[in-house]
């Protein structure tokens, strides 16, 4: 579904990614693990079009993404949940959700109602806060909103950047369950995490990134057992 081949990218003259290749197949949940500053977020930004790769190919369902603008990539069905729960603080929960619908092919009132119902089924807490400005939500609720927003768009592939960062254990469990639920609904997930335990609990397989390259790829089971994981991530 998403395929990166030998991707090189960076900021200005500073290279960050050194020939990254990875693949996410339809229906999978894949973890991208690694310590801080290893290029995980840069990889996501390159995939969604915020950063043009210097070299290499990025394909989504056979469509070349390397020269496409972020809004075009979103409309192809790629959703992005940025780190630190980046919602629109001044807009209400409803407005945040309805903005998410723009990437959807069908934006009719019927679709909007159905998607809102689905989202509220998964996140009843958001339904209670529907008319509240985004900034009045707690960290966990904002994370739910950021995830719900890409669900509104009907994204088929969701890229998540550190969704559990800074959340309390109870909320981390909730987010983890939500990712599992997305997977059950048939959504493909690429999950960037520092918290390997959470990521490997929901993902089928994973990659470990170090200094801009993929250094290890294996199934979640292998990753859990492997000494390499401990060595590279310190868990």
């Amino acid at each position, binding site marked *: 579904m998403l395929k990166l081949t030998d991707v090189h990218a960076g900021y200005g003259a500073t290279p960050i990614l050194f020939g990254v290749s990875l693949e996410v197949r339809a229906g999978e949940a894949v973890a991208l693990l690694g310590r801080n500053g290893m290029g995980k977020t840069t990889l996501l930004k390159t995939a*969604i*079009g*915020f950063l043009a790769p210097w070299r290499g190919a990025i394909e989504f369902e056979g469509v070349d993404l390397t020269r496409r*603008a*972020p*809004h075009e*990539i*979103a*409309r192809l069905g790629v959703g*992005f949940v*940025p780190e630190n729960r*980046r*919602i*629109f*603080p*001044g*807009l209400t929960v409803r*407005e945040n959700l*309805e*903005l*998410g619908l*723009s*990437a959807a092919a069908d934006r009719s009132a019927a679709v909007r109602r159905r998607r809102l119902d689905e989202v509220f089924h998964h996140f009843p807490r958001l339904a209670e806060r529907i008319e509240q400005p985004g900034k009045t939500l707690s960290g966990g609720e904002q994370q739910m909103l950021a995830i719900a*927003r890409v669900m509104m*768009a009907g994204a088929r592939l969701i890229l998540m950047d550190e969704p559990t960062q800074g959340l309390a254990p109870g909320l981390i469990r909730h987010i983890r369950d939500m990712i599992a639920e997305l997977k059950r609904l048939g959504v493909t997930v690429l999950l960037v995490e520092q918290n390997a335990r959470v990521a490997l609990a929901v993902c089928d397989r994973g990659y470990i990134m170090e200094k801009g390259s993929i250094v290890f790829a294996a199934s979640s089971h292998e990753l859990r057992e492997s000494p390499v994981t401990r060595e590279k991530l310190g868990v």
Partner: protein
Amino acid sequence: MSRALTWRAVLVWAALAALPALPFMSKFYLLLAFDALLFGAIAMSLDLLMGYTGLVSFGHAAFFGLGAYATAVLLERGIVSLWVCLLFAVLVVGLYALVVSYFSTARRGIYFALLTLIFAEVVYTFFRYTQTFGGSDGIQGLPAPSLAPGFAIDTPLRNYYLVLVYLGLAYLVCRILVTAHFGRVLVAIRENEDRARFLGYNVQRYKMAVCMISALITGLGGALYPGRSAFATPDLMLWTVSGELIIMVMIGGLGTLVGPVIGGAFFVLLQEKVSSYVDWYFIVIGLVLIFIVLFMPRGLLGIRGLLGGRRWRATA
């Protein structure tokens, strides 16, 4: 919109419509009221950019001046139909705004402001030094435009009602835009452009659209100006005019639409009153503005909040 708000709107419009009936409303005051409402409406159109989208245009004077010149050129040649003048202004301002907005919205932040300023300065310089359009004197001694054959807008009273209708229509357009989905996207862009982009919005297209709408409202306001003043001069497009428009929005209250109308009217009246007493009126105005910015960061409209009234929501 709540019932109370609708009633308040009706009251405000009724009061504005009845204003000329006041005993002290001489021709002079009617023209002053014209200016107050005209610049109020233009500041409101700038608020679409500044308050809602987070784009500060330093070149709105060019849209205003081009609208004025469009009318002036036609009036000078004996084409006095107001409708033709307005149509011509829409064409001229629209074409110019298309170019400006295309290039300006390709850049963010300070570059947007700078590009709008540079474009406006080019337009100013062109009219300032082109003798076809009267050079620095502009186009003077224009006849009044007419609404229909035999019905010229030739009195301050008629001009006043014309600008009142213009303000009303401009307000409706702006209010509908900001309450629609379009307005939500503008606020999303203001809050975080990148987020809007990865949600699937073609941000530049939205920015161009709101720039064009704001420019056209401002240009139409400019097109009404020669009917009141009988002239169009390059001074209308001076960069200080763009600066004054920004100040009007700031003192009125960003992102409220109504605020900038009050800000514009307040600025025009303050300038007139103070300048009739002292030559160094800009110092007085400056002090008043500093006071407002420091102590009323939400603008004049924010006073309502201080008095315990309903707080105006910056995004609605």
